[in-house]
Structures are given as C-alpha cells and as structure tokens.
C-alpha cells in the first residue's frame, strides 16, 4: 500500500478567481522522489495545501498511511500533519526568533519522539549544515540558509513525506544546487519527497518520477 494516495481529488476556490485542482489522482510510495511540474498557477501549491489538509478537498479523497481525509476527525488532524514536513515557497520563518527557535517550535509540536525538542532541533540544523547559524534570525540569513532552516523545520519531526513547494525558485544556481543536493540526501535517508517546481531542469541530478500539472489537471509528462 502506498504512503500517500490521491483519489480523484478536486478543489475549487470560492469565487473562482484562483485555479484549483480537478480530478487529480496519483500515489507516492515510501522513499520515492517525485517532481510535480507545472507553470505558476497550475495548482501545485493548492495540491500541497490539500495534502497537508490546510484546505479540504471539495471532492475525492486523500489517503495518508492508514488515515482517510474524508473520515478524519478534527482531533486526528495533528497526527496527519505530523507525518508530513512542509517546505513553503515563502519560507514562513518567524522573524522574531532565531533559526534554532524556529525549528524548536515545530519540534515542540511532536512529543512522541525521543529527545528534547531543543536537542532534536540542534541535530537537524547540523544535518542541513546550519550549525554555525543557529542563533541567527531570518533577516541575518541568506536565502539559501533560510531555505535550509525551513527544511530543518520540516524534518525535525521525522516525517514520512516531505513536501517542498518551489524550494529553489528564489535561489541562484549555486545555492539551488546545494538545496537540491540536501533534498536528495533527505530522500536517500528514506523520507519520501514531493517537490513542486516550475524549473525541473534544476533537479536533473535526482532520480525522480515526474508528474505534470496544467490548469489544475494532471497531464502526461
């Protein structure tokens, strides 16, 4: 059984100004690396919001491990989200706290893992190569370092699946290559990785499966 299954998932925004997703179906196996490719506005971010249940599908169903989105009770939503790590396009780092505190905040949300949140945060920051910048605030970090901090925050709770929304779009080629390499390492350690991008060429070095999204619908790559 797959790690994640989307079954004919549809989401339509109220008012119809933004394009949603329509009848999307695919599955992700444990340890897979998948690129979701599409132009800006193709529905990639909406798809990620649906997978993290930030928004609920208007039709269809998402299955994550043994959880089914349609039957999910609100009190089980945190458990659903703890299985995912999300890397946002706009970073969403809290400006008033250091890289360590940003990661530690996410770590504090999962109490079932061994080790104190601070220790886990330090460990994962070292893993992404940010040991020397743990006390720096986001405005003291470069774009690449901010992206690494976001990846650390997404990984701190040891998710089964990492969702990365345009992780290299705001980065120069060299920095982007470093982030791609980091995502590859994360994937090789066993975490299934789903990357949304409009620049698939930057991920050429990855052994990945490609899913193409156009106007909210899956098309043949």
């Amino acid at each position, binding site marked *: 059984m797959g790690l994640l299954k989307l079954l004919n998932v549809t989401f339509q925004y109220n008012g119809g100004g933004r394009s949603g997703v329509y009848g999307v179906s695919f599955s992700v196996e444990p340890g897979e690396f998948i690129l979701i490719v599409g132009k800006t506005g193709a529905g990639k971010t909406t798809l990620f919001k649906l997978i*993290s249940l*930030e*928004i*609920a599908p208007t039709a269809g169903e998402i299955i994550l491990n043994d959880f089914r989105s349609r039957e999910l009770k609100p009190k089980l939503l*945190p*458990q*659903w*989200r*703890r299985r995912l790590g*999300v890397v946002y396009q706009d970073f*969403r780092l*809290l400006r*008033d*706290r250091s890289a360590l505190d*940003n990661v530690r*905040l*996410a770590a*504090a*949300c*999962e*109490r079932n893992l061994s080790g104190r949140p601070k220790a886990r945060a330090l460990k994962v920051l070292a893993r992404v190569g940010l040991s020397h910048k743990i006390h720096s605030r986001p405005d003291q970090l470069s774009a690449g370092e901010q992206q690494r901090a976001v990846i650390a*925050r997404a990984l701190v*709770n040891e998710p089964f699946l990492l969702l990365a929304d345009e992780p290299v779009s705001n980065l120069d080629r060299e920095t982007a290559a470093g982030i791609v390499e980091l995502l590859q390492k994360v994937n090789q350690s066993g975490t299934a990785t789903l990357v949304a991008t409009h620049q698939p060429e930057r991920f050429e070095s990855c052994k990945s499966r490609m899913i193409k999204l156009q106007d909210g619908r899956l098309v043949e790559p």
Partner: protein
Amino acid sequence: MIAFLLREGWRNFSRLGIIGLLSLASLTITLSLVGLAARGYCLVEDWKAGILGRFEIEAFLAAEVDSSMAMEMAREIEGMKDVDHVSYVSKELAARRFRAQFGDDLFDLLEYNPLPSSLVVILKGDADPLKSWRRSSEAIAAIPGVDDVVYEGDLLAKVDRFYRTTGLGVGIAVGLTLIVSLVLTMMSVRSVIRSRKEFIQIVSLSGGTNFMARGPFVVLGGYYGFVSGLIAAGIVLLIDWIVKFAWGLKPSMMLWWIPAFLVCGVCIGMIGAGWAAQRQIREYERRAV
C-alpha cells in the same frame, strides 16, 4: 508542554504594544475598582453591624411578673436563634433612669412608680435586620407575661434599604467594569493573534494541537492578569492605608488580598484571552477552507 506555553506566552507578553498596554491598564483599573468596591462593602458591613448593635428590642412585662419570673423569661429569650444577650430592667431601675433623664416631677405628681419592668434584648450583629427583628419580636411577644414589644422598625427598614441599595450598586458597577475589562482583554489578545498569525499556522501545520496554538495566547492573558493584579493590589492597599491613616485608624496591611487580586486578575485575563483565541483561530480555519 507547560514550559512551552509559558515561554511562548512570555514571548508575546514581552512585545507589549499599545493595545497590550491598554489591556493592562484596563485590567488594572478594573481590579482596583473591584478591590475598592470590596473594601467599601466591608466598611458598609462593619457600619451595619455597628448600627444594628445599637438597636434593641424592649419587651415590657406585665405587672404580676416578678424578678425571678423575669429572669426565667430572659433565659428563654436568650435561647432564641438571633438573640445575642438580654438584660433585665426592673421597675426601680427604670424609675431611676427616668428621674436621671426627666427629673422627679412625674413621680411627685402620681406618688407611685407607673413604669413597667422590661427585658432589653440585643440581637446578633450578623442577623438579617428586618426578618430576624420581626421574627424575634413576634416570638418575644408570644411569651406569657410580656405586655408589649417595642423596636425601631422604620429605622431598621431604612438601614436595610440603604445597605441593599449600596450592595446592588456596587455589584452592578463591578459587573460592568468586569465586562468592559474582559472585552478589552479580548480585543487586545485578538490583535496580538492577528500579528502572530504565522505562529498559529506553523504550529498547526507542524502537527501541533489546537491547544498548542491557542495556549500561548491564553497564557498571555494570564500574564496580563498577573501584572495587573499585582499593580491593583498595590493601589488598593495603598489607598486603604491612606484612608485609615487619615481617619486615625490603626493602619493594617491585608496581605491576603494580594493573592486574591492575582488569582482574580489571572482568571479574568485567561478567560478573556481564551475566548479571543478561540474565536480568532476558528475564523482563520474558516477562511482557510
């Protein structure tokens, strides 16, 4: 979890903006007013007890009641629920008091002592003024040998009315200030939540429970309440001390008021903040979908 809530609550509190200061000020004023009202109520209580302690029920005895029978009746009356103590006024004592007050004219004219013996009854200070006085006087009047029972019913009714009106007024004022304070705390916390929207999103999307997203803001309300309670306790104790000093009373610090203020402040702060957080987070959830 508690450390997390306290740390995140403190993080919010340490960035106290103008609205936060407004909330702190309103809570301080509210708690000070509540404290002063409570102190005033205690003073009215003392005053009431003092006034009522001066009232007495006088039971005039029939002519055939001698002193031993009167003492027996006094014991019976002292056994009643609301009675504090009873004193016997013999015909002779009544006459001496009359002479001391009005002179000998009446007795010279009548050539005998027309004054009846009586029992003077003092009720307990905490007895319900109107009910207990009426109940006791009726019970005393029913004892064989009692001719008539007299007490200041109208004045008592006025004292009781004043006491109840004051209590009601204070209660309404305290209730209104509490509501205003709760609303201001809610507004303040809602504005903090709006500015910390990303925090809620991160906690929520990292698998944090609703309690973890809401808790730091509830704790923030608790911090508001704690600081306000501390300031308000200082204000009330200072005013109390000044008033007592000005009236020449022995100043005393009612230190147990300080934890009472803190508990009251923390409760108001947390309730207001809890409501605000719940409403705001629900609004975000509704908007998200």
